[in-house]
């Protein structure tokens, strides 16, 4: 594609555009959350919506997550398609009953008769010293619980297509967006997340991981911010003649185990990069997906680059020590080679 017709959007704008397009065609779609109307969302992903759709459909809520997420479940069951924002994934602690006991279970408990077509969008990730109640990813926490789809885009193209798919989905979707990918200057932004994004509406199918860089020697599996770390590490490793393949999971539920397995079958080596906690989470699940299927494909023990099992610290030095980075991925390759 030529430079002239390229249409680069931030993830924040891509999300808002997808919501606006669905709202124009489906009167059942509405948005609820804290600071999503006048302010346009603290992470910019509802900017411009209240101006176009008004306060009835772009609805600022009180600080009352149990109330409005529970209400979204009831509205969804009654034929609406609410998009609700949980400002930080960390805040799930005040409202998880509405999420995993109602939103995620009512379809099952009704034998499929009540549909709960809602999107719960929520921000994840650290890196800007917001400490341990505003920096968590919690991918594994959400993905662990059955009954809700869980997706997390790494770039604006996927962000738009996945938001459109999420709104049209008849099942509840947890849409997790990483703050460092939003294109908000004040958070520090990963430039690689802002990519060409078509103006017309389109969907990105859930359950399909994407090989974002082809390679021969090692598969680096990641998601959201970690994909960008992986691509940077891959470029670094390439200089020393190593050819890494990078897989962007995009969807956690349903998880595309086939793409992971096919890539590792080709490269024989696996590094998982996950900004969520080390134990009982995404990284272990990805490794298990490979080894329980065919352990013989592995030429070395898999490596994990993750957040350690500790609350996320505030001080810059401590937080940078804590988070995954391209350098840590390069080191993981070194450990793997040495092994």
């Amino acid at each position: 594609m030529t430079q002239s017709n390229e249409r680069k959007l931030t993830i924040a704008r891509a999300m808002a555009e997808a919501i606006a397009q669905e709202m124009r065609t489906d009167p059942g779609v509405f948005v609820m959350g804290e600071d999503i109307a006048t302010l346009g969302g603290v992470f910019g992903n509802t900017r411009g919506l209240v101006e176009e759709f008004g306060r009835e459909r772009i609805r600022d809520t009180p600080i009352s997550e149990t109330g409005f997420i529970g209400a979204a479940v009831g509205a969804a069951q009654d034929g609406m398609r609410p998009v609700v924002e949980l400002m930080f994934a960390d805040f799930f602690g005040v409202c998880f009953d509405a999420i995993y006991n109602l939103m995620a279970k009512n379809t099952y408990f009704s034998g499929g008769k009540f549909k709960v077509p809602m999107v719960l969008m929520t921000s994840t990730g650290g890196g800007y010293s917001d400490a341990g109640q505003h920096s968590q990813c919690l991918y594994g926490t959400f993905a662990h619980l059955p009954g809700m789809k869980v997706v997390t885009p790494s770039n604006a193209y996927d962000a738009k297509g996945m938001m459109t798919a999420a709104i049209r989905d008849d099942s509840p979707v947890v849409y997790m967006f990483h703050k460092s990918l939003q294109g908000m200057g004040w958070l520090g932004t990963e430039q690689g997340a802002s990519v060409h994004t078509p103006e017309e509406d389109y969907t990105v199918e859930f359950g399909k991981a994407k090989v974002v860089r082809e390679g021969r020697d090692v598969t680096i599996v990641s998601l959201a911010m970690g994909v960008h770390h992986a691509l940077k590490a891959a470029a670094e490793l390439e200089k020393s003649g190593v050819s890494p393949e990078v897989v962007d999971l995009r969807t956690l539920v349903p998880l595309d185990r086939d793409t992971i397995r096919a890539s590792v079958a080709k490269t024989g080596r696996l590094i998982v990069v996950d900004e969520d906690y080390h134990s009982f989470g995404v990284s272990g699940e990805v490794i298990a997906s490979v080894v329980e299927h065919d352990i013989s494909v592995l030429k070395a023990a898999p490596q994990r680059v993750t957040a350690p099992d500790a609350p996320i610290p505030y001080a810059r030095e401590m937080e940078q020590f804590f988070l995954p980075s391209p350098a840590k991925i390069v080191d993981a390759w070194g450990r793997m080679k040495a092994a």
Partner: protein
Amino acid sequence: MTPSKEQLHWMYETMVTSRRFEETIEKIYLEGKQPVFNMASGPIPGEMHLSNGQEPVAVGVCAHLEKGDIVTATHRPHHEAIAKGVDLNRMAAEIFGRATGLSGGRGGHMHLFDPEVNFACAGIIAQGMGPAVGAALSRKMQGKPGVAVAFIGEGAANQGAFHEAMNLAALWKLPFICVIEDNSWGISVAKKDSTAVARNDVRGAAYGVPGVYVEGNDPWKIFEAAGDAVARARAGEGPSLIEVETYRLAGHFMGDAEGYRPKGEKEALFARDPIPAMRKRLLDEGAADEAKLKELEARAEDRVSAAIDFARSSAAPAPEDALTEIFA
């Protein structure tokens, strides 16, 4: 607002249906659980929360509701489900864990869902508040008729979900009614040991919502209070809060020894059993004669036995169906 003769007949028949249903379930529940009580045994496994004594609340409120109106109920949902018109056969089958149950055996007695009459319930205290408020919001946004009623227990008024949902309903002036069934016990903890507020209707003031307390487990008074609230909601005037004094004639759940009740309380409550009381008043006021009451009672018996027969004769679900209907 007073109930018509037809409404009174419906209320009485529905109360008797609910009571017969509970009595029958109680008996069957104990099959296979004696002499050793094991919750996992018998044709109806799991926890069982019976609604004996609380029937007036369900009928007094649901007498004003239509099929399209929304009800969310609690972990003790049978009387409310029956009053809202949930298919009794499929409800019984769900309680028996059969393939023909409302959700094919996936939910059981605390998770009864019937989209035909917009009924849902949930097993966690105050959990129905948010969804009922959301359904009311949906109706308001769509410009569709309908009110949403959340039935909760008095213990639920101490939960955060109650307060958050009341605040939203008032803020958005929704066609929503919260009905608190005050049976004075949260399992074993008395209302007076749970809150310094004697009557929860006063909590409406915290949200700018009118509140009313109905004494005496009286179907007529409940009908009147609910009628006002439903009319208010239908007229677009916003939510209401009703707390009703009612009696839990059974334990919290089957197998509850009820050692926490003061001596003599159970006997006193049985003396005020609302079903014989309503029967007597119908006769006294000439709203029904003996023949009419017998007819209503017989119809209730028939419905219950048909439902139990349906459940008993239904097939068990295929085990592997446990993995279906997880997503839409």
